[in-house]
């Protein structure tokens, strides 16, 4: 280029940035890309032709005409740039973002991704080559992909310590405060009935218990059984009011009943009752009931409570069980291998021991046998290697994962319904889907994450239709008669 050429170039008027970019959009309808940025991942979706030479996805011939009508003809490729679990550390990209033009949030992306894909320093001169650059559009909430959650680090700081519902399962639920307390080792770490019931319901789901003749009931079942023992058939109708309980207990051979020693308390103090968790295992075919307790197996009071629950179940189902106490259970204090002193390990003990026994029963069933277990085997404690800290971490992770799955399912359903109904992009945005341009100020390289940024995390963000949403004021009135 000669000096006169340069001189001529300088005479060409500079154009506005948007006008300049507009000329580079040769195919504006097909080259748009979608961005999504969170504390833990950077996601970009585009058609891929210009970047990786990917051809548009072909619709299989067998696809029905109706489905084809509802699908876009060209599909997006989605790249997720996120920390590797193997690195076991937060990668810099989650906190350091390359910013070439602070006035343009389109330039904001992780450093390594920026070097590969996004052109640097914008130049707004006519003679400069046009940059490959397109407007980003809304990215439908990526939390609907369960796989994206694998990048989460399960930080409890993302969950507020309040009474909002954290996870609502068909048979039990747990609030945020109880969820956070699971990983505590002081008095707050004592598990509530919710904290016991939810992990057990997840356990039942994981091992497909009900399909295999195993029933893990909620802890309140022990309360109801104790009332049957205490009051008997006061209505003289053969416990007709307990039809559902009877049906549930009689549907399986193996029954696990978690029980709290507060089942005979009637507290009007407005606080919870009980001090200790244990459980009863009943093999209905062998007519055997075993009381397993990590602390009070020798205590007559606790033995009586367990015997009462077993007796009531026998009364309800018109069966007779031989009651026995297991002496091979590990001691929750002496045998606890937790590196941190745990003041309340009985809840974790109950959950983990039931898990071990269920896995055992299922393993035997898979081998074509049925487990005939009356007592825990000798040396069970040694093999168990009871560690309440490890168990608490596992319970916490299971609940967090279940919440993510539930959230992903809900969001996917919402998205699919909206997409099939032909909702346009701008309407999707109104429904809570994210758009990068509307994100808060980007995090500058080297700065710490702000609270606002935390709120954009992929995980532990309450979905728009979560049951934990605030309760709307209801116009209906409640009157005491």
């Amino acid at each position: 280029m000669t000096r006169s050429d340069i001189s001529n170039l300088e005479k060409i008027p500079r154009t506005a940035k948007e006008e300049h970019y507009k000329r580079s959009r040769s195919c504006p309808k097909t080259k748009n890309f979608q961005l999504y940025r969170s504390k833990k991942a950077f996601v970009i979706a585009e058609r891929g032709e210009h970047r990786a030479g990917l051809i548009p996805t072909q619709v299989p011939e067998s696809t029905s005409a109706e489905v084809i009508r509802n699908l876009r003809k060209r599909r997006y490729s989605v790249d997720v740039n996120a920390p590797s679990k193997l690195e076991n550390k937060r990668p810099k990209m989650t906190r350091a973002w390359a910013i070439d033009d602070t006035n343009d949030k389109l330039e904001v992306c992780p450093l390594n991704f920026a070097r590969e894909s996004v052109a640097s320093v914008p130049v707004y001169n006519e003679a400069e080559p046009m940059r490959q650059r397109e407007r980003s559009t809304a990215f439908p909430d990526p939390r609907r992909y369960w796989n994206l959650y694998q990048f989460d680090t399960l930080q409890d700081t993302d969950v507020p310590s309040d009474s909002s519902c954290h996870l609502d399962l068909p048979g039990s639920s747990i609030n945020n405060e109880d969820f956070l307390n699971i990983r505590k080792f002081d008095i707050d770490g004592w598990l509530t009935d919710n904290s016991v019931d939810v992990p057990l319901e997840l356990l039942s789901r994981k091992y497909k218990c009900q399909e295999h003749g195993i029933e893990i009931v909620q802890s309140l079942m022990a309360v109801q059984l104790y009332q049957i023992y205490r009051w008997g058939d006061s209505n003289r109708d053969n416990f007709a009011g307990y039809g559902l309980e009877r049906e549930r207990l009689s549907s399986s051979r193996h029954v696990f009943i978690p029980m709290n020693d507060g089942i005979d308390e009637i507290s009007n103090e407005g606080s919870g009752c009980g001090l200790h968790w244990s459980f009863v295992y009943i093999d209905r075919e062998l007519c055997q009931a075993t009381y397993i307790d990590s602390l009070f197996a020798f205590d007559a009071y606790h033995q009586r409570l367990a015997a009462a629950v077993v007796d009531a179940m026998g009364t309800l189902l018109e069966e007779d069980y031989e009651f026995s106490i297991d002496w091979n259970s590990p001691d929750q204090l002496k045998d606890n291998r937790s590196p941190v002193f745990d003041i309340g390990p009985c809840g974790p003990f109950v959950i983990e021991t039931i898990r071990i026994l269920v896995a055992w029963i299922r393993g035997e069933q898979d081998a074509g046998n049925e487990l005939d277990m009356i007592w825990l085997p000798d040396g069970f404690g040694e093999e168990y290697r009871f560690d309440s800290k490890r168990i608490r971490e596992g319970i916490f992770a299971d609940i967090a994962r279940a919440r993510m799955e539930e959230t992903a399912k809900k969001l996917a359903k919402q998205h699919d319904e909206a997409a099939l109904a032909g909702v346009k992009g701008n309407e999707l945005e109104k429904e809570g889907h994210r758009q990068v341009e509307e994100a808060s100020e980007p995090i500058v390289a080297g700065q710490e994450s702000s609270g606002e940024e935390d709120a954009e995390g992929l995980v532990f963000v309450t979905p728009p239709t979560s049951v934990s949403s605030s309760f709307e004021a209801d116009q209906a009135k409640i009157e005491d008669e």
Partner: protein
Amino acid sequence: MSDNGSPSNMQKPEDAGQSEHLNIKVTDNNNEVFFKIKRTTQLKKLMDAFCDRQGKNPASVRFLFDGARVQPTDNPESLDMQDGDTLEVHQEQIGGGC
């Protein structure tokens, strides 16, 4: 169960299905409180009202209907409740050791 009766034992008026309001009994073994509530009203209102009356902390009690836990967001319609049905109240249980 005690002489308080159980949900299935309550008499259910024949014409209750058409009524906009339901009479629901809430019992915790010691006390019985009756509420009239709309079919579509969230049971949170009823739970709060019961706890208020009995001086209980709503977070420390559990409500059961037909043996299943009741959530504050449930309403009589979603639970298929009928006039005269009973909600049982149980104390929260907690344990760790001693």
